[in-house]
């Protein structure tokens, strides 16, 4: 009798396990309207964390699905999003053929950065723009700051980013724009600077740029905005990607600047592989880059590695690891020797190098408690080491640990609460900053509420506490309010007001060094800087082929941190300027012509910056900036151009020139840069190949972004990539 019960129980268990083990598979192919496979299209199951991307043939697979009905979301930048409802009744697998329509005007792009959840740009109360992976690849950008130079409202001075005039330029000092990869911050623990070389451009799906203060969500360093690099998804089927490129700089414009008998070149190669095995997906990348440099002693050699691994525990729980690092050796070139020797550094820098090793590693643990509540935990570590192999022998090692816990809670239909807590600890061992540590934490919350279908109201605030070694601790509350109103289907109004804040970096407070004749001294009394930012904007779609966006902004800065030269001892020191103001407008537009074959994109930014103490403009802020890009595509052939103009900056570091530290340092002009490109996509047997020819600065226009630093002269490159 007992044995019989035992067998019945076993039978029931077996049956239950069989039912529980039943799983479903969705396979498919995503193409454009003409049937051309779309590579890298995103496929997500709505309400889950499960997703994938299409491979080189446009194919995808989602397997081991537990439920018998799903809503499939298919999206790709440049194409209209599609949702498909699926149910498995008497079959365990389904195969789909999905065609995506090309978007004419990209106002319904989905971004994640502005409000820390997926949201369409047209729903946001702030200005956001997106750079696609397609553009990054076509232009053969070696680092992503090169791509940002062509975004309206963004100015890159050498390698430091400024959004709407938020920053100028200071060697080795902090940023006012938070840069992150999948939300994991990417600034060093010692100097707080962005190292663009750390992230391989080929693994980035898109770059999201949030313009204006974002401290209410992101805390310190997001005072001027956020640049979030969204990594590519791991592919479901094995995919190997190979890219090779080589380029050469032309002769300098003047014989006086010629410093070598041979043309200087640059080249690189990248190999990556992505695949999913069961519940584990993995992407690994290795790349090498070498640049002889168009300037003497400005060479670079760099090995990079990148790893992304994701494990889906269930439909509601996943863990993703992202790691990226490099080992680099680079020649030293701080300022030119003089305008007559614009491509030469001072004699004492010849032969000097700055080797550096850096890596960032982060985890993204995502769990959905229900359809309404989800949680994201993001611990990360940024390790940075550099050594100045010159007479100064300066070196610095830093470890920045961060953890953030974010909870998104859908209170009701049209009502979403995003809350989080973030902590950080930073430890630095350095010959110029000293042995220092800093820590801090932040708590934030933001409520998004649809007052009506057309009216979105956003209200949020963040509290931050910051302690920088021996400096007095500081805290700050950054509130923000935003409105988005769809006046008509074609007219969207937006407005936002918020407070931003930035704690000084260890470098700004404690640097004590002399290099290239320039001495920097510490300022133990440095305080946090704050800003109040306001924006109103309108987005107007005139037809399916033409749209414009206008934004007016006003940023008021208090205790603005800027380097000055102390007249008593001629040393550089970071000080709090009492007040500064940056006002302006940004006008951008998209135009599609010739049956969507020709796309034009342009942007103009007017910037009025002012140090309210002195009445002068802020340093390194061009008053007028203009960018225009054009792309023409016919069949497998494409070509395009990019032009950017920045007016001559009014104010620079005059003291560096007056004290003779940068010979001819006041020599600067308007910036006029024209780039041309052509591409050809073709099949070599079963292999899809892409070939791009880029001609950068074709007019060989000579200009500086940062004083005493001639920007890259004309150069040409050829790149080839394929995947299998």
């Amino acid at each position, binding site marked *: 009798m007992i044995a019989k019960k035992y067998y019945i129980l076993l039978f029931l268990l077996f049956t239950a396990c069989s039912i529980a083990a039943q799983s479903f598979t969705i396979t498919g192919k995503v193409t454009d309207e003409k049937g051309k496979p779309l590579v890298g299209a995103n496929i997500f199951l709505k309400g889950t964390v499960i997703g994938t991307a299409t491979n080189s043939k446009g194919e995808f697979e989602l397997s081991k699905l537990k439920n018998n009905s799903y809503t499939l979301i298919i999206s790709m930048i440049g194409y209209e999003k599609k949702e498909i409802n699926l149910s498995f009744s008497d079959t365990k697998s389904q195969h789909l053929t999905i065609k995506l329509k090309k978007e004419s005007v990209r106002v319904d792009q989905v971004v994640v950065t502005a409000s820390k959840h997926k949201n369409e740009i047209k729903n946001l109360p702030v200005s956001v723009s997106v750079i696609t992976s397609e553009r990054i690849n076509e232009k053969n950008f070696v680092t992503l700051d090169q791509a940002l130079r062509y975004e309206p409202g963004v100015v890159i001075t050498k390698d430091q980013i400024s959004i709407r005039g938020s920053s100028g330029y200071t060697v080795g000092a902090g940023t006012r724009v938070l840069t992150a990869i999948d939300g994991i911050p990417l600034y060093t623990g010692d100097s707080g600077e962005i190292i663009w070389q750390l992230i391989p451009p080929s693994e980035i799906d898109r770059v999201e740029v949030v313009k204006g203060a974002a401290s209410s969500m992101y805390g310190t360093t997001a005072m001027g905005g956020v640049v979030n690099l969204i990594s590519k998804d791991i592919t479901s089927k094995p995919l190997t990607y190979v890219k090779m490129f080589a380029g050469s700089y032309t002769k300098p414009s003047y*014989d*006086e600047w010629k410093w070598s008998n041979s043309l200087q070149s640059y080249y690189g190669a990248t190999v990556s592989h992505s695949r999913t095995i069961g519940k584990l997906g993995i992407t690994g990348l290795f790349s090498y880059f070498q640049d002889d440099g168009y300037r*003497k*002693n400005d060479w670079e050699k760099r090995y990079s590695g990148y790893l992304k691994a994701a494990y889906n525990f269930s439909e509601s729980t996943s863990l993703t690891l992202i790691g990226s690092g490099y080992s680099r050796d680079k020649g030293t070139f701080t300022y030119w020797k003089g*305008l007559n020797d614009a491509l030469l550094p001072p*004699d004492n820098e010849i032969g000097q190098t700055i080797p550096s090793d850096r890596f960032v590693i982060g985890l993204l643990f995502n769990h959905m408690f229900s359809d309404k509540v989800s949680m994201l935990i993001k611990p990360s570590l940024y390790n940075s080491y550099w050594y100045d192999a010159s007479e100064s022998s300066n070196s610095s090692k830093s470890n920045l640990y961060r953890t953030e816990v974010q909870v998104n809670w859908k209170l009701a239909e049209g009502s979403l609460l995003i809350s989080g807590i973030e902590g950080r600890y930073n430890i630095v061992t350095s010959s110029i900053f000293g042995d220092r540590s800093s820590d801090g934490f932040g708590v934030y919350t933001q409520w998004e509420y649809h007052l009506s279908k057309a009216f979105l109201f956003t209200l949020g605030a963040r509290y931050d506490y910051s302690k920088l070694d021996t400096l007095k601790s500081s805290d700050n509350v950054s509130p923000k309010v935003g409105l988005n109103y769809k006046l008509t289907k074609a007219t969207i109004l937006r407005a936002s007001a918020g407070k931003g804040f930035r704690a000084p970096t260890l470098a700004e407070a404690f640097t004590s060094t002399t290099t290239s004749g320039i001495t920097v001294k510490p300022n133990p009394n440095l305080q946090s800087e704050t800003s109040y930012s306001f924006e109103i904007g309108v987005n107007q779609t005139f037809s399916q082929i033409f749209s414009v966006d206008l934004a007016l902004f006003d940023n008021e800065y208090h205790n603005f941190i800027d380097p000055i030269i102390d007249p008593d001892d001629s040393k550089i020191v970071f000080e709090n300027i009492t007040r500064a103001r940056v006002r302006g407008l940004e006008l951008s537009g998209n135009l599609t012509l010739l049956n969507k074959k020709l796309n034009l994109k342009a942007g103009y930014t007017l910037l009025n910056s002012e140090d309210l103490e002195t009445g002068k403009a802020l340093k390194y802020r061009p008053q007028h900036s203009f960018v225009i890009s054009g792309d023409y595509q016919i069949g497998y052939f494409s070509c395009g151009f990019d032009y950017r103009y920045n007016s001559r900056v009014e104010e620079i570091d005059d003291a560096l020139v007056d004290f003779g530290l940068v010979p001819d340092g006041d*020599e600067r*002009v308007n910036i006029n840069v*024209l780039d041309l490109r052509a591409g050809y996509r073709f099949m070599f047997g079963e292999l899809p190949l892409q070939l791009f020819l880029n001609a950068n600065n074709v007019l060989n226009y000579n200009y500086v972004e940062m004083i005493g630093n001639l920007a890259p002269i004309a150069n040409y490159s050829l790149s080839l990539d394929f995947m299998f």
Partner: protein
Amino acid sequence: MKFYFIIILAAIILVSCDGGLAPTEPGLENKTGFGGTITFVGNWDPEITQTNIVLFKDPLLSEADFNIQNLRYLSTAIPFGTTEYSYNSIDSILFGNVEAGKYAYLAVVQTKAEQISMDRKDWFVVGVYQSEGAEPGEITIEENKFKFDVNIVCDFNNPPPQPPGGE
């Protein structure tokens, strides 16, 4: 119509651009002089006090030829420890105006002396200019024509033959 827009835009860009920054005194190529790169191979002797480029009109056949009348160009001091040094006879000038003509000896010299003198014994040659088909050190400067790529390699481990009079 649409292409006209692009053409007009391209024309505006091209017209609006001059060349941008230029050397403060352009036209080096039309000046009488020479310039190039000095490359140093090996370790610098820590006792070196000064390194210069020198140009003599007549050959250094005896110790007496190493004199101020024969010296026609003396560069500014090359920084200690440098691996590469770019110079030109117009900017990097401490002494002497280079005139057009044929010169017998262009070299890089070093001294360990505390005080700079024209005593031949104080100096030793670490690199000599060599142009194709000419004697070591020989160089010809043309009127109103700048001679580029006058490069000299100084191999500390393999010094060149020394002119008479040295130690």
